[in-house]
Each structure stands twice: as C-alpha cells, then as structure tokens.
C-alpha cells in the first residue's frame, strides 16, 4: 500500500520526452488537464486515455508504472466513485436500501473518477520524465514574470523543489520504519481497518519527527553554504528551447484547439 507510491519519482530513460524542456512538459500537463475539463461526452476519455498511453510509450516508461501511480490514490478514486454514484439526483436505475442509484449518477461517477485518474496519470508522467531540479527551474522561469509584482517566485520554486526531493526520501524512510515496526510485531496488511489505523500511528509519529529533523538540518546546511534566497543566481543548466520543444508546442496547441473546436461545434 504505502510502498506503492510512485508520484514524484523520476524514472530515468533516454527518450524524446525526457529531453524536452521542463517548461514544455509543464505546459503539456496543463493542456492535458484543461482538455480533461473540456470533455463533454464520456467517450472522449477513451481518446485522452489513448493519448496518455501513447505518451508513456514514447517516454519508454512501462505501463506497469502507470497503474502503480494510481494504486496510491485508490481510496480517493473509490470514494469519489461511490459518492457520485449515490448522491446524484435523476432517473432512478437501481435501489440499494436507502441509496438510489441514478442513470445520471452512473455517468457522472464514471467520468469524474476517470478524470481524476487521468489527471494523476498525466501529472505522474511529468515527474517520471523530469528531475526535481528541472521542474523547479521550469516553474521558476515560466512564472518568473510574477517577480515584477513582488511574488517571491524564486523562493516558491526552491520550496517546490525541496518538497519533490523529499518524497523519495520519506518513502525510503517509511520502508525502513515499516520493517522496524514489523519486527516489533506490527501487522500492516493482514488485520482489521481499526487495527490498521492504530498501527499507522506507529509510522506517522517517527516519520513526522524525522521530517522535521531533516528539514531543519537541510536549512542549516543551506545557510552554511551561503544560501540566503536573495539576489540573482546563475544557472548551471540554463533552460533553452530546441526544435523538439517547438514541435511539441505546436502539437499541444493543435490538440487543445481540436478539443475546443469539438466542444463548440458539439460533434459528439
């Protein structure tokens, strides 16, 4: 369960998507998510699903990872599905005790769950194909214009980068803690939900403590090396757009334009 989290983990491969500028990829994810929200008919999701499958294929990331990323948010998906199913008014389709399932409920539940799932899949692709540093650099440059109105973009970018960087560390730490507590007789898999919740506590507390300790150590280490967050720093790896980025942008806008046109003319 906890060991299956893959969001925020870089999956190194030599592919055309990996070598794209991170700004392009950020834009790509935004376009993809925008497209998800423009969907009117559930069949469109099939198309969007095909798109993400193709992108995973191009990025040479095994499809297994796509599913692994979803496993972590399984509970969220199930909850969304069930609540949408039983709480949408409309033509009744089936009755379970006090709950009425409506036809509209079924369509809405399916489309909302699929939307969240595809959103996560798309966002995971971004983190699979770009390192935390690239992402933070991309974010900083893409939103750099906001510095002019005194939004501390640089600080925000650093925070985002550190947050990303910490995910694998915390996962690693959780694994160690799970082993340690399992050695003290804690069952994490084969027990009741109530017991599970209590057992999770034996992980959460030490994990929080170590996160606080680690972050204060990190802050100290950064200050010791002269980091103050002020002034302009030069880039070791400057972000430059290449031909492939331009092609990617063109494809993205064609895709977005296509979706919008389909939405307006109401073909489906």
């Amino acid at each position: 369960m906890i060991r299956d989290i893959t969001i925020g983990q870089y999956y190194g491969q030599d592919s055309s998507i990996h070598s794209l500028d991170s700004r392009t990829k950020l834009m790509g994810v935004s376009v993809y998510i925008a497209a998800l929200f423009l969907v009117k008919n559930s069949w469109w999701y099939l198309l969007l699903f095909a798109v993400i499958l193709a992108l995973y294929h191009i990025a040479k990331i095994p499809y297994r990872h796509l599913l692994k990323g979803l496993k972590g948010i399984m509970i969220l998906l199930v909850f969304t599905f069930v609540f949408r199913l039983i709480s949408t008014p409309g033509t009744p389709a089936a009755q379970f005790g006090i709950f009425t399932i409506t036809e509209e409920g079924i369509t809405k539940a399916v489309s909302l769950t699929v939307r969240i799932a595809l959103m996560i899949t798309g966002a995971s692709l971004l983190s699979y194909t770009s390192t935390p540093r690239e992402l933070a650099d991309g974010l900083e440059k893409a939103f750099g214009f906001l510095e002019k109105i005194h939004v501390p973009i640089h600080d925000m970018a650093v925070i985002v980068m550190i947050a990303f960087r910490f995910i694998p560390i915390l996962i690693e730490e959780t694994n160690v803690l799970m082993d340690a507590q399992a050695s003290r007789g804690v069952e994490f898999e084969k027990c009741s939900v109530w017991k599970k919740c209590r057992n999770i506590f034996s992980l959460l507390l030490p994990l929080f403590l170590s996160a606080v300790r680690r972050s204060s150590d990190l802050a100290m280490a950064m200050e010791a090396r002269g980091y103050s967050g002020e002034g302009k720093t030069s880039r070791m790896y400057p972000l430059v757009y290449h031909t492939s980025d331009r092609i990617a942008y063109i494809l993205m806008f064609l895709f977005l334009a296509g979706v919008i046109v389909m939405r307006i003319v109401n073909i489906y």
Partner: protein
Amino acid sequence: MMKVEHLKFTYAKKTVDECRVLNDISFSVQEGEFIGLIGSSGSGKTTLIKHLNGLLKADSGTVYFQGQNIYDKKYILSKLRKEVGLVFQYPEQQLFGKTVLADVCFGPLNLGMTKEEAEKSAKECLELVGIGEAYYYTSPFDLSGGQKRCVAIAGILAMQPKILVMDEPAAGLDPETKYMVFELVEKIRKTRNIAIVLVSHHMEDVARYANKVLVLHKGELVLSGTTEEVFTKTDFLRQIGMDVPQITSVTEKLIQAGVPMTAPATSVKEAEDMIMKVLRERGGMK
C-alpha cells in the same frame, strides 16, 4: 537453532535496476553463539538479516528455525518475529510511545503477551540496559541519544527473543556508551543463553566479542569460521576491501620483522601472551 540454506535474493526483479544481492548463502546459528557479520558497504549484510525474521522472502533457498521451514505456508511469521529480534540501524528513530515504558511494551503486546507480562518483561529489560525507574514515565523524546538507543534495544529485548540480530548497534555512539551497549549484549547472551548476530564495520568490536565470523562480499559468503580463523587471513580480507583488527595488523608486522610468533593475534590479551612467550624464550636462551 537457525539454519540458512542456499539463500538467493534479487532486488527489483524484472526491471531495469534488477540487482542480485544475495547469492547462495548458507550458515547456521547455534544457541549462545556470538556471530559477527562483516562486509563492505553494499555487500548485502542488511538484506541478509532481513531474511532472518521473514521481512524479506528469498527467491530460492530456505531458512529453518528450530527445525521448521519459515517459508512453509502454515508457518506463522509473527511467531518468528518474536523469537528473532531485529535491531535496525539507528533504532532510536522508531520510538513513538508516550512514555518509555509504553514504547518498550509495544512489541511484547503486539506479540500477544498480556499487559502484566509485557510490563514485567519491559521493566526487566530497561533495568538491563541501565534505564532506571525514574525514566519509566518520561517521554522517550526527552532522553539523550545514547539513552534512546538503549530504550530501543530494550524494546526488542522485551520480546524475549532467542536470537538477537543487531545492525551496527554502536554507530554514532561515543566510546563509553558503545562499550556499555556491547557489554550489555554480552551479558544478555550469557544470562539468557541466546544467540547474537552482530553486523558491524568495526573490526575491533567483532574481534573482541564474536566467537564466529561470517564475511560477505558482493552478496556471497566468502569466508566463515572462528574469529581467529577469519582474521588471520589478513591478505584475503584486505583484498576484498576489509580491514583487520589493529592488534592483528600489529602482530602481523612483528612477524614480518622476524619475531618468532605463530600467527597474528586477534585480541590484545592473546598478543600479550604471545609476546610474553617470545620474551621468556629469549630470556631462557640467555
């Protein structure tokens, strides 16, 4: 008591970062033994000890505990975890109880002891590690690093294991606390007649306390035997990037310089005896 046969293990099977960590490992642990497990970083020591209480399952090979195969479908792993206590590196990081006593009771309670039994066992073990009654109801987070380590070790001991496996129990401790921890482990071994498996990078500690040594190198068990047998193979150990105890390399140099001693010593006491013998013989010749 415990027998490991032809253990093989691979991490991240069938992915790009597949890596074989353990290859055909066989050894046994008898009651009352003090086994030192040494090997350079990444040699698979930690992976190996995770097999001893069933945290990891080997790809092939078997582990027998008291004659029973632990990979048997009917075997209850939680029973094994009670019998084989595993103390991880930096065990103080797994503390979470409200009080010291509650934290030490956590393991025994999970493994089915009653509240009274658990508390009795916990108090006994806290006593052993030198944490007095005054600390029973304080938060474990208020203790010093060394004390936290002792509480964590007591938490494992309170489960009354038959085999105690410790991964670098002395890492990051000052010499005095470290000495205390080792003396404590030795005392427990003698009084309860349990077996100890000690994973360490520190050759002096291993030479001093262990009576059997296993050497891992790149996932293979390259050397095993009594402490003397292993540490006198100085050339081989250095070749695979390991060190030998200081006293061993000193006596080795003496031999090279022409002092007529039989073999390099593994403890200061032994070296002393050897040198005295040589001196006496010289005195006799006079």
